[in-house]
């Protein structure tokens, strides 16, 4: 599927901005600056409208759909942009749908004052919170916790800066962060949504995030692959470029099949958004993209040989980021499990 004119603009501006911000060099620098967050660049991204891609125009967003969001994420994934954006875009989608109660939070997200992350929680009934593996935990993080509350559903906004919040950040191989978060009394955390409408908005936001991560992984693996192809055309052994060896060519072709087909699935899954196949489709896209990105980036290291095993070479950055993003909201196995759970009513729809 080809991009329309507007879509082309989004992609080009994303590529221009991420390259201008430093591209892979910046990805490496940010990794080494862990656990620091680059608030200045985050604000610039917000200024470009990226946190509000899926926020309606009346509320100050770009008013675009998940397809456009995924095109943007695919583009920023190419240079391993450390700000993954998918959580913020999903958060924007969610806050927009939650209406007036969430207006203030939404404004802060659109300004780039906070980095909002929707986090599913089993139960929000008790005031004490203990959360594991919370992604993107920085001083400016705003968690949007969605979970059941006394038989109903609630979304609460918990700021990393709120009193009583303690966190233990854990460093990941790509410079991203997972945190263990404690809060003895989260009852002060603002309720920004409740009831069935909030539940369905929250579930949909998680699906936006799944699709977004999948799109980021598509851009990531395609860029890793392009770097590898370049290497195969220039690196010589036995007097010829290694790209002329059939054993390597066939593995390269398999990567190409993997990338193209995953991309097709991700953008087809975008079309299932807001239909009865949304849950299955976004889980399928996340499963396929997680598996393919790991397959491709591992293969890219192998095709580089020893230089690919050095920290100095950039190809390893792709594998490490793929590991971190694949793990989000359930990797391949977690996403396949979700597909199993959503099979029943989908197979009805598919006949």
């Amino acid at each position, binding site marked *: 599927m080809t991009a329309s004119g507007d879509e082309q603009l989004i992609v080009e501006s994303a590529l221009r901005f991420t390259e201008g911000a430093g591209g892979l060099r910046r990805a490496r620098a940010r990794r080494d600056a862990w656990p620091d967050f680059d608030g200045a660049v985050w604000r610039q991204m917000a200024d470009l409208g990226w946190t509000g891609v899926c926020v309606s125009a009346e509320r100050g967003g770009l008013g675009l759909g998940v397809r456009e969001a995924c095109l943007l994420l695919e583009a920023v994934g190419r240079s391993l942009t450390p700000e993954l954006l998918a959580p913020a875009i999903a958060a924007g989608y969610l806050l927009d749908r939650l209406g007036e109660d969430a207006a203030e939070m939404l404004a802060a997200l659109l300004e780039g004052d906070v980095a909002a992350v929707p986090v599913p929680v089993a139960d929000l009934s008790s005031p004490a919170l203990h959360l594991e593996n919370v992604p993107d935990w920085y001083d400016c993080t705003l968690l949007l916790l969605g979970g059941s509350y006394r038989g109903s559903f609630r979304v609460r906004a918990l700021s990393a800066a709120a009193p009583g919040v303690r966190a233990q950040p854990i460093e990941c191989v790509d410079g991203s962060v997972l945190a263990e978060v404690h809060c003895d009394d989260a009852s002060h955390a603002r309720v920004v949504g409740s009831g069935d409408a909030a539940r369905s908005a929250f579930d949909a936001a998680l699906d936006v995030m799944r699709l977004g991560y999948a799109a980021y992984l598509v851009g990531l693996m395609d860029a890793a692959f392009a770097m590898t192809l370049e290497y195969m055309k220039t690196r010589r052994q036995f007097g010829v470029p290694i790209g002329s060896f059939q054993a*390597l*060519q066939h593995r390269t072709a398999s990567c190409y099949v993997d990338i193209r087909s995953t991309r097709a699935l991700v953008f087809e899954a975008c079309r299932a958004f807001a239909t009865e196949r949304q849950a299955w489709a976004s889980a399928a896209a996340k499963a396929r993209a997680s598996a393919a990105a790991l397959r491709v980036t591992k293969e890219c290291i192998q095709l580089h040989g020893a230089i690919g095993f050095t920290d100095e070479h950039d190809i390893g950055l792709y594998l490490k980021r793929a590991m971190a993003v694949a793990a989000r909201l359930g990797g391949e196995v977690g996403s396949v499990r979700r597909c199993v759970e959503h099979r029943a009513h989908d197979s009805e729809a598919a006949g």
Partner: protein
Amino acid sequence: MLRPESAAERRFRGEVRSWLEENLPPELRYLTFRPPPEVIMPWYRRLSQRGWIAPHWPRAWGGMEASPAEEVILMEEMARAGAPDLPSQGLNHIGPILMRFGTDAQKQRHLPPIVAGDVVWCQGYSEPGAGSDLAALRTRAERRGDSLVINGHKIWTTWGHHAQWMYALVRTSVGASKRDGITFVLIDLSTPGITRRPIKTIAGDDEFCEVFFDDVVVPLEHVVGEIDRGWEIATALLSEERLRVAAPLQALRALTRLHMLCEATGALEDPVLAARVAEVEIETETLIASYLSVAETHAAGGAVDSSYLKILATETVQRILDVLQEVAGERRAVKRALPSGDKRLDFSEMFLQARRLSIYAGSNEIQRTLIATRVLGLGGGGK
């Protein structure tokens, strides 16, 4: 198909579904083998009369000019109803070639019988010494007056013993390159001097055969394009043909069989098998999405990069049938499909038949070499 359907598409799906329900004979449902012409061709003609035999053909020649989404709907419903595999060499291969390169007389003579189901075609490309290296073919055609006289040997000819006509590549001269001097010709298989011998496959069927030519006289009017320039014709539409080979129909059919077996055995209660099934369901939607994307690019006049689709489609079918074999469990090696209610449960037949998919229409290794050298720009000819 994951995308939502338009009102017209939903209507079309409903029409196809109820028509198949009423018109597809029970004895033709959920077969594992393609039945012989006397069994399958009446069904082919029925589809033709309904107007659904040639979704991708122009209306002028009896086609539907279907959109890629409509094609997928048709395939999904055919698979769901258990519709049998049809002979497709006419519809997918020689038909489109004649539309582009045939003379008016050739089109008028050959296209209507393909759509009507009056003539079955086969492809005379491979030879014992020319498989992946197709241009090494040696079946000779000598010009004698207004005719070509053909001597040689074709092999792996799908449905060759059931067909009335063959389109073939023959050598008319020895040129600078082995691709020169090849001629594309249509052969009436009732011509004297032709011997056909069916070959039994590892799946136990006789889907293909070998064909011997002994002084077979073919009038020059049956040459398509110019003498000695047949290679260009054979390859001009290759990527479009491959697009048809790579349609998700076979994967959908295999997935239907897998679902039937799961239902009969309760396999989805087992979380390991349930995950395996979910994985191939994801792969099937990945294939459909890829097919739609390539077919839409093709419909919009863009270049068709179908090698990747051929690999994806055939390997998806094989993966589905690998899972089917796991679900079959101890019955993995059971030879014939067994009746189960009004259906038949397949254990091994489609799995064995599917070995051919990654071999025919240019082996998947050839496709990978094509991707590496032509699409990705890796040099060295890939040998």
